[in-house]
């Protein structure tokens, strides 16, 4: 196994990045007939040409079956697949590439831990903790495994600004707590949770922590050895990579204690009529022909973002979100949710306008070329906490600029005019 680079070996962040010129890396903006103000990156991010080219290169010049052939094309395909795994291990500073399991999505990765790990050890009366701000993907798998095992799903409540209220989470680090599954960044509120702090306290009680990093990987520097979490899940398409692929990172002992969710080709050592044995990690978790082009595109996205610098991207996006928050705050009748600009806030803003349904707002925004999301964002427990059925959401990424914010504000004003806000 090739050694993984340490944090200290990572390239330094350049002094200044011309983010405006980076927009040209994303062909969709030039291809769009009318100006495209894409403020829905938290749903799915746009793709730079290098990611698309890496996928096209794979299919046109380097395509073959992975881990299933002895001829050169099959061998190079297998090597490309494993090189992608190493790139992603490096990207989050995993100690070894075998700790990265490719999945279809972050959702699948969480389900793998819920059914392949938690379901094996959970006892009646045990507790699994999530927070009130979780995406359904980090809520439903735990709800199901708790229900089937007579265990209890506990909720970390939120304070009035949308931060975790750890003081009110009595028993979080208690004797019954078997797992804390928590998002690093809220996909609705933009809150950045104090994962390091939670893991440090949980570790003292030997409570494992799973981090849902779907909104944080590729958006900010992330080091799993530094975080010291037991599991972490990510999704390629939210970090400028292709759809249909994500990964599960796990500490070696945790993955060793996890049973595969899918059985089939490629994940076995020996198959007999009466019994079978599994392959080594991570192959045992990757039944079926692997998603080669997806893995290559995923790695290309990681390389692209790393080339710009995660710290620079985080700063840029936070700056845009701060500016947007400032402009939106002055809109009459707006209600903004979440902690607002600051160290613990990312590039995601949710809001509602008095008397205007978020769907109407999003539709009128669309007519202005502004792409925002409206709905419950797969976070119904959070909507219940906020006392609303849905919100509008604007989310930023490295390709956004000040014009996008101005267009959003203009669209909101137009929605108020059209729908007769008084």
């Amino acid at each position, binding site marked *: 196994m090739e050694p993984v680079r340490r944090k200290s070996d990572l390239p330094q962040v350049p002094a200044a990045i011309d983010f405006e010129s980076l927009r040209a890396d994303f062909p969709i903006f030039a291809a769009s007939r009318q100006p495209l103000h894409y403020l829905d990156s938290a749903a799915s991010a746009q793709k730079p040409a290098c990611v698309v080219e890496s996928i096209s290169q794979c299919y046109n010049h380097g395509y073959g079956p992975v881990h299933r052939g002895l001829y050169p094309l099959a061998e190079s395909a297998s090597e490309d697949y494993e090189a992608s795994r190493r790139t992603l291990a490096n990207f989050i500073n995993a100690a070894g590439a075998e700790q990265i399991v490719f999945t279809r999505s972050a959702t699948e990765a969480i389900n793998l831990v819920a059914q392949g790990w938690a379901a094996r050890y959970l006892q009646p009366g045990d507790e699994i903790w999530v927070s009130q701000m979780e995406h359904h993907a980090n809520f439903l798998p735990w709800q199901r495994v708790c229900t089937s095992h007579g265990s209890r799903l506990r909720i970390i409540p939120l304070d009035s600004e949308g931060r975790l209220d750890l003081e009110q989470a009595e028993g979080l680090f208690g004797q019954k707590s078997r797992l804390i599954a928590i998002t690093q960044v809220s996909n609705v509120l933009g809150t950045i949770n104090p994962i390091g702090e939670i893991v440090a306290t949980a570790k003292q009680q030997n409570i494992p922590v799973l981090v849902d990093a779907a909104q944080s990987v590729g958006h900010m520097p992330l080091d799993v050895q530094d975080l010291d979490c037991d599991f972490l899940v990510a999704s390629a398409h939210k970090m400028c990579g292709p759809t249909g692929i994500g990964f599960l990172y796990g500490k070696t002992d945790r993955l060793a204690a996890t049973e595969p969710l899918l059985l089939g080709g490629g994940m076995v050592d020996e198959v007999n009529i009466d019994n079978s044995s599994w392959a080594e990690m991570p192959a045992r978790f990757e039944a079926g022909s692997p998603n080669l082009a997806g893995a290559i595109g995923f790695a290309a996205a990681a390389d692209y973002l790393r080339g710009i610098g995660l710290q620079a991207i985080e700063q840029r996006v936070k700056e845009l979100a701060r500016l947007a928050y400032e402009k939106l705050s002055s809109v009459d009748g707006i209600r903004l949710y979440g902690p607002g600009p600051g160290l613990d806030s990312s590039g995601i803003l949710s809001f509602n306008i008095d008397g205007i*349904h*978020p*769907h*109407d707002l999003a*539709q*009128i925004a669309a*007519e*202005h070329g502004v792409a925002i999301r*409206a*709905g*419950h964002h797969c976070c*119904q427990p959070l909507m219940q906490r906020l006392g*609303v*059925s*849905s919100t509008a959401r604007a989310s930023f990424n490295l390709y956004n600029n000040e014009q996008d914010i101005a267009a959003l504000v203009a669209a909101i004003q*137009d929605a108020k005019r*059209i*729908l*007769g806000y008084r």
Partner: protein
Amino acid sequence: MSSDSVYKAVLLDHFHNPRNKGELDAMDMVKRGSNPRCGDEIEVGIASSNGVLETVRFRGRGCSICLASASMMTECTSGLELQQARQLIARMQQWFSNPDNEAPPNENLAALGTIRQHPARKKCVLLAWQALDETLDGIEDQFAASNR
């Protein structure tokens, strides 16, 4: 704003000045439709006599499309025979499920046509119509029970 905006004057008029909206206490049958995905909730009530829909009313909350569609529906269906109302509901559903079916089921509903280009909002348009369909089921069930 593009010329093919969803927000036609007719729709906005129904949204701002909804017809037949309010209390449903005097209705013979009331059914509720909801879309938890966006929080829309509509109740449709009908009063009928001798197989004719004398009154169709609604109340509830929702987006402008949902409320405008409900308002337009009450105007188009009041006074219809129950079977005619059933047929109109069916044509409305077909209009929104078949892209080739260009003609609106009723000229007074034509303004809803722009929303056919936005499949994500089909449910907003049809929520009240589905609730009306259920009130008709309820009336028929009542009728069948009284003749048993």
